[in-house]
């Protein structure tokens, strides 16, 4: 069995979400910030007349903040029928991964990312970290 995943990077690491969940990929969206909201919410965007929340995955995964001048990309995913935008550094590609390459997170992984990662696919030369989109959106 293999799974098709859309990959993206965050702070130099490779992450992926199931291609089934992905609706589209965007760039250059003006975001409206939401004062008082949790830092993981990067703002609201207008996607063809629909208002979407943008989730800052770096903040969510406790990674350092992005440089001011790099423009983030948005991966629009659908969770329970509702679109949500995930803010990432760069978009990778669509890859097929074998299920036997998969391993659950190591026991040494603690903190928020343990809940948000399904596990890792052992690709050649690097690991593809599979994001649990349901939890990422709910967090």
């Amino acid at each position: 069995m293999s799974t098709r995943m859309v990959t993206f990077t965050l702070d130099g690491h490779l992450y992926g979400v199931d291609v089934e969940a992905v609706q589209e990929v965007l760039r250059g969206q003006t975001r409206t910030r939401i004062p008082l909201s949790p830092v993981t919410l990067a703002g609201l965007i207008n996607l063809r007349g629909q208002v979407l929340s943008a989730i800052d995955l770096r903040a969510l995964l406790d990674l350092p903040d992005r440089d001011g001048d790099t423009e983030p990309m948005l991966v629009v995913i659908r969770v329970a029928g509702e679109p949500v935008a995930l803010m990432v550094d760069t978009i990778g590609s669509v890859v097929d991964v074998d299920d036997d390459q998969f391993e659950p997170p190591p026991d040494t992984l603690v903190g928020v990312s343990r809940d948000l990662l399904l596990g890792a696919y052992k690709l050649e030369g690097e690991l593809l970290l599979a994001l649990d989109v349901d939890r990422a959106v709910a967090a």
Partner: protein
Amino acid sequence: MEEIDEIVQEFLVESHENLDQLDRDLVALEREPGSRDLLGSIFRTIHTIKGTSGFLAFGNLESVTHVGENLLARLRDGKQSMTPQTTDVLLAMVDKVRELLAVIEDCGTEGDIDVTEVVERITAVLEGNAAPTPIAELLPEPEAAVEVEAEVAAEPVPTPTPTATAVEATEEVSSTRRNVAESSIRVDVELLDTLMRLVGELVLTRNQIVRQAGDQDDLDLTRSAQRLNLIATELQEGVMKTRMQPIDHLWSKLPRVVRDLGAACGKSVTLAMVGRETELDRSLLESVKDPLTHLVRNAVDHGLEDPAGRIAAGKPAEGVLTLRAYHEGGQVVVEVCDDGAGIDADRIAEKALASGLRTTAQLAQMSPADILQLIFLPGFSTAQSVTNVSGRGVGMDVVKTNIEAIGGTIEVESVVGRGTTCRLRIPLTLAIVPALTVECAGDRYAIPQVSLLELVALDADRAATAVEDVNGASVYRLRGALLPLVRLTDVLGVESDRSDGHVLIAVLQAEGKRFGLVIDRVLSTEEIVVKPLTSRLKSLGTYSGATILGDGRVALILDVQALARRALTAEALERGAAGTAAEETKTSREHLRMLVAGIGGGRRVAIPLSSVTRLENIAASTVEVVGSREVVQYRGAILPLLRLDRHLGAISERAGDDLVVVVYSAGARSVAIVVDEIIDIVDEESEVHSDIDDHGLVGSTLIRDRIVEVLDVRAAILAADPKFYSDSDVEIDLRDELQEAV
């Protein structure tokens, strides 16, 4: 077959409406037994159903309505008079008809509903030998009572055989309904919802086009954009109206509910309804239906006492249940009030304690009003006994959940021995609302117009004196009353980017109280399409939704009610509402410089310098009299003149050809206050004052060891120009500000 289905469908829809009308009429008839109008209306309704059911070959339905019609005909013609029994059998007939219609709707045939019992009972009443029937049996019977009746089950599905009689029947049927039928059509609700969505998108696009057209110098484009603007607005209003329905649609079912329930509980109840015509969006109407019915049932079952109990309590035997609906502050308020025994907060507290929902310590800190709200907790019930109506400990929490699901609130008020009121507040969450867009720290926000009272713009000079504080809480004097100020930047925890000292205040009304929201800039007013927020963002208690502005960017809609609750303590609101004169003089004295003037007889009067725009000497000969007032021409305008000595009961000692005038202006209006001499301008720091509350003064103070009276400027100005404050200066400033913004 298609065709007959359609006819049956239409018949069902029509009949259901007719039955609702019938319920209302029958209950009303019980109150006014002799009413020919009501009897006539009931007769026609039943006759219509009978006629159509005959035509469609629903035999059982026809036989029930046939005997019913006979009974009604006798009543209408005065051959028989109304008794409670007659009403009972007629209601039983309506129930049976409804049951039959439900089966027809399900399977297209009459199924195996037994009608003989009802027919017999009606016949018995017709023949005048009805045996009294216990009320319980009259309540809608469950399907279990159904007996198999081979004849009916075997009845074939009717085929369209338009015979002469059938045509006659339909003609007769339609003749009674022609008026409605010719002027209205039925529309699928889903279609309306789709239209509403589309109109929402159209409004957004309209906003974008209007904005872009404004940026260009193309006259034709501007004209077309304006036209589009108008049409879109009208279209939107029209579509919105199609979705509005009076709350009477819900209420019309309640008289029957109350009657049956009253009978079942052995209580006699009058139902009063106020504000039937109050309209709300149909989607909301639907969501309110069950909670409202539940509250009404609760009120009859628990709220009202039985007749004996009421008489013992010195009340009329008949209980009164009042339903009230009205619009308030952009919300629809629906109240269910009974004049029953009320809810005892102590008993609620005991019960909450006993069922472990609250601890003694928690209860001790709660006010009686808060304790009452505990009835909305899951698993709470205080009914002495569990009846089949209510008292199973489910209900009030479900009501609350349902109301909150549509963004509404529910509260209960009660006075022991006097009655209980449940109040629902339902938002008018119509998809499109007029709003004011404002800017704060570079971000744009929308404020729904319903909460907005007015806008106040202060330039840096005026802001420096007009925005004062009461022990650290900012206030602004709005036409003499203190308005508590809330800075949006503080609420949102952001930095303002306005550094020129200008202050813009949106005067808002929330929960019956006023406050001023200080914002950076006012942008414009526009119709916005409300997009819902995720529950997580809603729970921030700051935003009620989001919208997309003309340039395609997202703006958050401020939740004014929640802002008021968050930012204002109860005391701040009180202060804002009360704003006493003493407090005002105190604050003004701490901050303001005073102009000290003599008015004769050695008296000195202090006038806050902020009230003064100019000091002038004018020739006494320029004073003219208009009516009973003195005026003077000054810089091309006519100023009303106020002689302060006369106003304060002193005698001027000044002799000469000229007058010393203090000019006070606000916006376009000015008055001239005549004094004897200008003595000094002082920094007023003294705390010493006595409350001599003489006419026209707010007190007195010691300045340089002399007693100086402090002028009540507002009263003085009103004496000169009663209209001075009626058209506010601030609106003029605002217009400039808006023009600047556009």
